C-alpha cells in the first residue's frame, strides 16, 4: 500500500519540528523518572534532601516533566503526520514557534521550581503568569493543524481525536485559571470542583491526542485504513468525548458540592474504555497474520499498552463506584491508577510513536533487541510498583475507615516495607526508561548526523511493506 504522499515544496525549509518535539519529549521523560525516583526516597528516608530539594519542589518537577513529556511527544506525533499531507513554510514556522515558546516556558518554569516559586495548583504548579506561554504555543499548534487538515476530505477518527484533544486542552487550560477571579477563589469548594473538572478533562484531552496517535500507528503498521474509519471507532471517539466532558466528577465524590455532579459522573464513568479495548483487540486479530512483529518495535510497545489498558480499566471502573471510591480516594490506589495510565498506557504508546519515528529515520533495526529487553524490564518494574502502591492504598483505605485510628505518622511507618519495594521498582523504571530513551535518541542522532535518511518515517515504512 502506498502512502508516500509527503507533499513538500522542494524550495521549502526541511521540516524538523516533529523531531525536535519528540527528542525533547524523551529528555523530559528521563527527567520525569529521575525526579520521581528522588521524590520516592522521601517515603523511606523523610529527611533526605529535605532542606535542599524538598518534596514541594520535587513533586512539581516530576509532574511537570510528565505533563511536558506527554504533550510534547503527542504534539511531535501529530506534527509527524503533517508529512503525509502538506508542509509549507508557514506551517514549519508555526510549529517552530510552538517549540521555541514551549522551550522558553520550560526553562522559566523549571527555574521557578528550583527557586521555590510556586503557583501551588495540581498539575500546573508554576505561578499563573507563566501560563500564557503554554497557551500561546498551543494556539500555534491549533492554527497549523487547521491549516494542514481543514481542507482534507474524509477525516479518519484520529483526525477528529487530535482536533478534539487540541481544542479541549485549550478550554481546560483556561478553565484551570478561573481561580484567579475572586468569585471563584473565595468559594473554596467551587474552586476545588472547577480545578478537578479541568484536571479531569485535561487528562481526557491528552488521551484524545495519544489514542489518536495509537490509531494512526495501527493504521500505518497494519496498512488497514478501515479501522480508523469504522463506525465502531467513531462510536468509541464519541464515548471518549462524552467522558472527557462529564466523567471528571469521580475525583470529587466526597466534596460537598451539588450531588448531581457525583451522579452524572458515576453513570458516565462506567463506559469509557470498553469500546477502545474492543478496537484494540479487533486490530490485533486482523493484524496478527499480516504483521511482522520482528520488524515492528512499535508493535511491541502498543501490545504492552493493551495489557495495561485492561488492568487500568478494571481499576478505573472500581474507583468510579462511589461506595468503593470512599475507600480508595486520597489513597495510593489513586496513585497506582495514575502511574498505570501515564506509564503503562500513555508512555508506552508514545514510546511506540518515538520508536517508529526512529525506524523511519534511518531504517535501523539493530537496536530492537535492546529496546525489547528494556521494555520487558519496564513492564516488570511497573507491575511491581503498581502492586506495592495498591497494597499501600488498600491498607490506607482500611485505616481511613477504622473507627479507632492511630496517627498518620505511625500508619506511614507501617507501610515502609511496601515503600521500599516501590522505591526499588522505581529505580528499575528509571533504568529501563532511561535506557529506552538513550537507545532511541542515540540511534536518531547517529542516523541524522550521518545523513542516513532514506525517507520520512511512515512513508518509507509503507514503501518497505
Amino acid at each position: 500500500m502506498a502512502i508516500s504522499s509527503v507533499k513538500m515544496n522542494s524550495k521549502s525549509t526541511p521540516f524538523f519540528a516533529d523531531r525536535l518535539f519528540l527528542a525533547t519529549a524523551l529528555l523530559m521523560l528521563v527527567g520525569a523518572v529521575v525526579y520521581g525516583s528522588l521524590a520516592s526516597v522521601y517515603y523511606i528516608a523523610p529527611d533526605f534532601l529535605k532542606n535542599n530539594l524538598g518534596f514541594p519542589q520535587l513533586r512539581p518537577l516530576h509532574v511537570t516533566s510528565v505533563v511536558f513529556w506527554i504533550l510534547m511527544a503527542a504534539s511531535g506525533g501529530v506534527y509527524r503526520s503533517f508529512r503525509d499531507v502538506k508542509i509549507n513554510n508557514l506551517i514549519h514556522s508555526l510549529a517552530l514557534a510552538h517549540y521555541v515558546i514551549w522551550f522558553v516556558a520550560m526553562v522559566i518554569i523549571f527555574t521557578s521550581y528550583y527557586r521555590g516559586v510556586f503557583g501551588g495548583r495540581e498539575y500546573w504548579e508554576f505561578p499563573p503568569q507563566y501560563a500564557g506561554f503554554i497557551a500561546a504555543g498551543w494556539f500555534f499548534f491549533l492554527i497549523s493543524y487547521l491549516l494542514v487538515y481543514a481542507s482534507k476530505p474524509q477525516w479518519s477518527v484520529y483526525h477528529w481525536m487530535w482536533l478534539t484533544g487540541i481544542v479541549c486542552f485549550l478550554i481546560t487550560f483556561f478553565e484551570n485559571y478561573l481561580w484567579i477571579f475572586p468569585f471563584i477563589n473565595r468559594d473554596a469548594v467551587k474552586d476545588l470542583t472547577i480545578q478537578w473538572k479541568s484536571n479531569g478533562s485535561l487528562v481526557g484531552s491528552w488521551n484524545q491526542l495519544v489514542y489518536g496517535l495509537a490509531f494512526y500507528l495501527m493504521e500505518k503498521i497494519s496498512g488497514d485504513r478501515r479501522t480508523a474509519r469504522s463506525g465502531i471507532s467513531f462510536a468509541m471517539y464519541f464515548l471518549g468525548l462524552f467522558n472527557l466532558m462529564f466523567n471528571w466528577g469521580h475525583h470529587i465524590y466526597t466534596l460537598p458540592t451539588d450531588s448531581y455532579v457525583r451522579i452524572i459522573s458515576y453513570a458516565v464513568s462506567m463506559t469509557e474504555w470498553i469500546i477502545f479495548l474492543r478496537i484494540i483487540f479487533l486490530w490485533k486479530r486482523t493484524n496478527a497474520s499480516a504483521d511482522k512483529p520482528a520488524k515492528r518495535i512499535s508493535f511491541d510497545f502498543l501490545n504492552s499498552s493493551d495489557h495495561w489498558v485492561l488492568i487500568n480499566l478494571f481499576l478505573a471502573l472500581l474507583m468510579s463506584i462511589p461506595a468503593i471510591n470512599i475507600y480508595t480516594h486520597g489513597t495510593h490506589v489513586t496513585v497506582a491508577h495514575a502511574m498505570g495510565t501515564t506509564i503503562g498506557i500513555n508512555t508506552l504508546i508514545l514510546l511506540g510513536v518515538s520508536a517508529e519515528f526512529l525506524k523511519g529515520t534511518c531504517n535501523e533495526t539493530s537496536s530492537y533487541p535492546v529496546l525489547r529487553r528494556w521494555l520487558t524490564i519496564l513492564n516488570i518494574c511497573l507491575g511491581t510498583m503498581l502492586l506495592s502502591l495498591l497494597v499501600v492504598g488498600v491498607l490506607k483505605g482500611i485505616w481511613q475507615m477504622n473507627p479507632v485510628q492511630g496517627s498518620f505518622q505511625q500508619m506511614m511507618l507501617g507501610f515502609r516495607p511496601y515503600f521500599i519495594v516501590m522505591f526499588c521498582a522505581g529505580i528499575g523504571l528509571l533504568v529501563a526508561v532511561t535506557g529506552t530513551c538513550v537507545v532511541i535518541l542515540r540511534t536518531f542522532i547517529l542516523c541524522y548526523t550521518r545523513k542516513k535518511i532514506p525517507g520520512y518515517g511512515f512513508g518509507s515504512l509503507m514503501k518497505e511493506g
Partner: protein
Amino acid sequence: MVCSFVVYSFHIYTGNNLLKKNLLLGDVALEGKMIWQQNNCQSCHQFYGLGGYLGPDLTNVYSTKDKGTGYIGIMIKNGTKTMPAFKMTEAEIEKVTEFLRCMDETGKADPRNFKATVSGDIKCKDE
C-alpha cells in the same frame, strides 16, 4: 453533547453553594490561601482527599481534638521529620490558620462520614 457541556460547565461556574451557606473566604483567609499555594502545601497535603500523599489531609485539622490553632502554628514553625520548617511570620501563620479554619467549616472530609447505598452511591451520614 457540546450544548450540554456548555450548560453543565456554566452551572458549575455560577453555582454558589458556599455563598448560600455564607462560607466564602474572607480577606484574611484568602491571603492565607495564597500563602498555602505559594508554599506548594498541596504537594504533600490534601483537602477532601485531593492533593499529595506524603502528609495528612488537613480539611478538618482545625477542629480535630488536640489539634487546632496552636498545633497548626507549631507544625508550620518547627516542621517534622518529613515536613520542612517554614520561615513564616506570625501574621502569615495566622492567615494560614484562618484559611484552614474556613476550610474546616465547609464540611467533613473523613470518609467514615459517608455510608454506601444499594445502588453503589454514597450518602453523608449527617443528611
